[in-house]
């Protein structure tokens, strides 16, 4: 009894310590941010490997989420004779919720884990220590460019995800299910609001971008310097980022929902 209590206390202490060191890491990152733009090359390289190389996955995902959304909502809407609202239904769901969340989850799986294992391997092979010896700050050189690239990439990826989703819904809705083209687009224009829907979606994906890329660099930087440490860093990044994203999504949706 006392033993399991003590175990609980110890693991709670560990959790608090990890959480605290994560906060410290985030704070340590802040002063580096403005200086990072003096070396834009480092950032663009990372935007390429984190953002541009995720494009295919994101576009594929967005397109098929849109098509499935159209098929699924059609079967419900047709019962009420409201199939004209299909476009509005699909695009609002995409822009508000699915776009930011699914794009961020895919990003965490595709790029967040890559960052964690890359930085973790640098730690394990003493590359970070070697940089410090050469008076190159690894925070400035390795961590911050990856973080900034992630924060820039995720909202763009979410926007691409939404666009592909709307196009997918358009293809299925209009060309497969026979929804009227004009009704499809005019309902979208009627329902989707610039600030409430598109704005809040982009804001969400910005927050998700910060959490996904911060978690990737943190886990990599603090990985145990061995093979299992690197793999654990990659796994923890995906798991913790997913939990954070879903948690933040609930909070942000509650905050940005009009009329709640």
């Amino acid at each position, binding site marked *: 009894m006392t033993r399991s209590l003590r175990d609980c206390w110890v693991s709670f202490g560990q959790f608090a310590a990890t959480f605290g060191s994560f906060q410290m890491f985030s704070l340590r990152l802040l002063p580096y941010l403005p200086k990072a733009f003096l070396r834009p090359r480092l950032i663009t390289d990372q*935007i390429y490997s984190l953002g541009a190389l995720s494009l295919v996955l994101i576009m594929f995902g967005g397109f098929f989420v849109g098509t499935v959304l159209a098929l699924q909502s059609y079967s419900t809407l047709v019962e009420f004779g409201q199939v004209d609202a299909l476009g509005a239904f699909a695009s609002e769901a995409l822009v508000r919720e699915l776009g930011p969340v699914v794009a961020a989850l895919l990003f965490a799986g595709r790029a967040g884990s890559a960052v964690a294992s890359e930085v973790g391997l640098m730690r394990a092979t003493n590359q970070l220590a070697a940089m410090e010896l050469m008076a190159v700050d690894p925070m400035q050189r390795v961590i911050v460019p990856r973080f900034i690239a992630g924060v820039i990439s995720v909202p763009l990826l979410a*926007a691409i995800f939404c666009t592909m989703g*709307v196009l997918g819904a358009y293809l299925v809705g209009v060309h497969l299910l026979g929804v009227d083209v004009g009704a499809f*687009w005019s309902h979208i224009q009627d329902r989707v609001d610039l600030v409430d829907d598109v704005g809040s979606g982009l804001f969400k994906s910005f927050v998700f971008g910060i959490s996904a890329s911060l978690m990737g660099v943190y886990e990599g930087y603090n990985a145990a310097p061995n093979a299992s440490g690197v793999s654990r860093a990659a796994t923890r990044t995906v798991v913790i980022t997913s939990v954070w994203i879903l948690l933040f999504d609930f909070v942000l949706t509650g905050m940005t929902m009009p009329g709640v």
Partner: protein
Amino acid sequence: MSSESRAIDIGVGLFILLGLGSVIFLTTQTLGSTALSESTSYTLHAHFDHIGDLKVRAPVALAGVTIGRVSRISVDPINYQASVELRIDKTFNQFPIDTFASIATTGLLGGKYIELGPGGDEEVLQDQDEIEFTQSAILLENLIGKFMVNGKGDKDE
């Protein structure tokens, strides 16, 4: 510049372009012909006894064609009426002063909108003017209630 970094530049450029293009696509979707800014629209006010479930952003229509939006709904605490603010496209600034505003429904289950019926007066409504003649929303429940009461009455007689 090496060819590898050139490929990266192209990749990043395409990615950013595609991302910004998507943002523009998503924002222009919402800015159909119905988007009204301060400079291209003017405001009218109307009081209704009951607005049903009229929402902010509901269309304002003339002969069934959308020419504006409901921009604000509030309740007047003095005469207990709903006060509705309408933003209307500046092209349609020739409404006579005895124009009629009624709350109508699109379809059976559809949302509420405001239909304007132009009157015959020479004077026209200006920005911030009040539409005096209004008709409240017809509540389906009241209508059904009336029918039921009437139906009973007929049978009794």
